[in-house]
Structures are given as structure tokens and as C-alpha cells.
């Protein structure tokens, strides 16, 4: 098990180091989420109220995540590095978990800027909403890493990723919006935890089949 954890850590570290050197994805995600929030200010009518802004926050987060997920498997695809990883003597699901953790790190880094900016521009977030953000992030990264690996194996790649991902993200949006505006936010957190559990197990078990011939 510790060997598995070491594999996962090595793979996630590799992605983070690549990002530190190339600085491709994270600055793009940061700028994108800020620009989206500004766009939302002009899209919302002045009397729209906070609930509408909370709803749009989740749209912004999911689309920012999509931006990161679209780039997620680019390093592996270049030079057919994924084939090397698949041949390496490690459990294939470790590749998925490493990617999910790296994507999670990028997303959280983007949110560290985006959430205070949202509070500044629109309305403050309450505690359950922050917990909701954490649970939604986990869901996005587990499902998204698998789906973007699927998209990476297709010809259309970046084009198809949102089509595959958005129907799967609808329950996350429901949970996220519920956790930030419903008086009974705990129910939505529970639902998000259920989503994370079901789809993490499914992604973990099925990733091997997505990358092997």
C-alpha cells in the first residue's frame, strides 16, 4: 500500500513540478476565473440578488476546472509518455489518482484567489458553501481526470471534453448551489459526499481500461 502511495505521490509531484517550470495551466485558470467573475457582474441585472451570484459562482468554478482538465493529459500525450506510464510496474489506477490530485491542487490554487474575489465582488460565502467547494472539487477532479483521459484518446480531444463532462457535473452543480443557498445545506453536503464516493470508486476501478489496449 505504501508503494502505491509512493507511486501516486511521485506522479502528482511530476505534474506539479512540470507546472512550476512551464507555468502553462495555473495562470490561465486564475485569469479565466477572474475574467468570468467580471463578466458575471455585467451579465447579472442590478436587482438580481445574491442567490443568482451564488449560482453563477458554481458555473465559473466548473468551467475553470474544465480549462485545467483540458490540459491535464497533454504532458502524457506528448512523446507518448502515457504508454511508458502504462508499462511501468505500478498499479494503473495510481496514474489516475496522481492526475486527480495534481488537478485538485491546481483547482484549489485557483479557488484561493477566486473565492475571496467572489466575496469581494458579490457576496460572502458561508461555511457550508466552503465545505461544498471542497466536496465539489473532489468530484470534479476524480470524474474529470477519468473523462479527460477518455477525451485524450479521441481525435477531437478538447472539443469533446465539455460534452462528456458537463452532464456528469450537473449533480455537482446542484449540490454546490444547494450548499450555498439552501437553509438546509447539510443535506446537499451529504449528497455531494455520496457523489464523490460513488464516482471515485467507479473511476478508480475503471481507469485501467481507459488507458490500456
Amino acid at each position, binding site marked *: 500500500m505504501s508503494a502505491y502511495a509512493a507511486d501516486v505521490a511521485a506522479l502528482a509531484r511530476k505534474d506539479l513540478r512540470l507546472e512550476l517550470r512551464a507555468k502553462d495551466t495555473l495562470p490561465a485558470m486564475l485569469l479565466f476565473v477572474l475574467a468570468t467573475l467580471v463578466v458575471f457582474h455585467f451579465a447579472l441585472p442590478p436587482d438580481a440578488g445574491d442567490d443568482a451570484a451564488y449560482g453563477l459562482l458554481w458555473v465559473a468554478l466548473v468551467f475553470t476546472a474544465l480549462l485545467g482538465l483540458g490540459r491535464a493529459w497533454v504532458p502524457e500525450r506528448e512523446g507518448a509518455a502515457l504508454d511508458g506510464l502504462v508499462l511501468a510496474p505500478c498499479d494503473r489506477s495510481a496514474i489516475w489518482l496522481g492526475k486527480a490530485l495534481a488537478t485538485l491542487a491546481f483547482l484549489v490554487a485557483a479557488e484561493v484567489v477566486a473565492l475571496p474575489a467572489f466575496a469581494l465582488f458579490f457576496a460572502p460565502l458561508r461555511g457550508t458553501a466552503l465545505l461544498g467547494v471542497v466536496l465539489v472539487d473532489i468530484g470534479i477532479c476524480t470524474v474529470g481526470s*477519468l473523462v479527460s483521459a*477518455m*477525451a485524450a*484518446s*479521441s*481525435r*477531437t480531444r478538447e472539443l*469533446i471534453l465539455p*460534452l*462528456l463532462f*458537463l*452532464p*456528469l457535473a*450537473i*449533480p455537482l452543480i*446542484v*449540490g454546490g*448551489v*444547494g450548499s450555498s*443557498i*439552501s437553509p*438546509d445545506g447539510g*443535506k*446537499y453536503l451529504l*449528497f455531494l459526499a*455520496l*457523489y464523490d464516493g*460513488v*464516482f471515485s470508486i*467507479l473511476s478508480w476501478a*475503471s481507469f485501467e*481500461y*481507459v488507458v*490500456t*489496449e
Partner: protein
Amino acid sequence: MSLNRNVAAIAVGAAGLMALALAMVFFVAPEDADQGISQKIFYFHVPIALTAYACFGTGAWKGLRLLWTGAERYDLESYTAIHQGTIFGALTLLTGSIWAKASWGVWWAWSSNQLVLFLVLFLFYCAYFMLRFSVEPGTRRARVSAVYALFGVALIPISFLAIRLANDFIHPTVFTRHGAQMTGTMLAAFWVSWAALLLLAFVMYRVELIGKHIDANLRDLRDILTAR
């Protein structure tokens, strides 16, 4: 091929059962006290939806078998089942929309959980075809499609739950479809209709599968001939 003959026999059975279902729906089952004649679409809308679930379930099951055994034939079977499911899903949206217009006066109602769920599923399974047609044919495509099909059956209950939860903050449920209990003949008409649609889906599935097999054989034959 005996399989083809069986399909013909089952197709005749499906047609007969469908005629029986139509007769029962329009002549045996009593007219609904509240909704009148427009309630008759219930006998098609709900069985079509249930049949679509059955097709999606079959597609996922075949996908699981593919991943489990690695037998290539499950790929085509899974794809065909999902194709049928998508057709029946589109029909569910269509009949649901007609029913919404007849009973509530609008073509689309977000408060109808079933309709919203089918819209989500329709989008999800349309993406399945996009994915499938943009991956090179082979083991990889079969496996990716199978995994996606498995995600579909996990998404159905999760989405259903999500849509139920979303109703709490979007709007309370105003419309309910199954207010009154169905009487004996209504229930019988419903069951016969569902059986007819399931059989129809099965026939369509077999016919499409046979066509796909012939297609594949023809392509193999052509490859052999051009290679000579």
C-alpha cells in the same frame, strides 16, 4: 440463420402485442376522470421511459461483460443497446413534452423530474456517440465506450436524486402525475403496453445487431479481397 427467423417471429409477436396494447388503452381502460383523453399518453410515455432505462441498463451490463471477459462481441451489443436507449429516450422527451402541453399548457416543465432527468441522460448519451465516433475502432474504443456506459447507470440514480434535491431551491413540486390510483383495467393496459414496447425494443435491438454484423462481415470480406 435461425436467429433471423426468430427475430421475424418475435417481430410479429411485438406487432400483435402492440395492437393489443392500443386496443386496451383506447377501448378497455376507462377514461381518466380529471385529464380525459390526454391521459392516454401515459400508457406510452411511462413504458417508453422504462424501456429506455432497460436499454441503458443492458448497454452498461454488456459493457461490464466486455471489461470482464474481453469478448469483442459485447462491444457491438453494448453500443446497439445504448443506441436503442437513446431512441427511446428521445421518444420519452417527445411524449413527455406533448403530455405537458396537454395537461399544463406548456411544452416544457422543469418541475417534471422525469423530463429533466431524460434531458440530462439524452445529453450524456449523445456525448457517448460523439466519443465513440472520434476514437479509432479497436480494443481501446470498445473499453472506453464500456466505461462510459457504466458511468451512465451510475449517473441515472445520482441525477434523479440531484433533480429531486434541486426542486427544493428552484421551486416546490406543483404537478404530480400519479395522483389517483389506477384501476384494474388501467393497470392491465399499462402492463401490456410496457410489454409490447419492451418486445419492440428487443426486436429493434436484434435487427440493428444483425445489420451491424452483416456490415462487419462485408467489410472483412472486402479487406480480404483487396488484400489479394
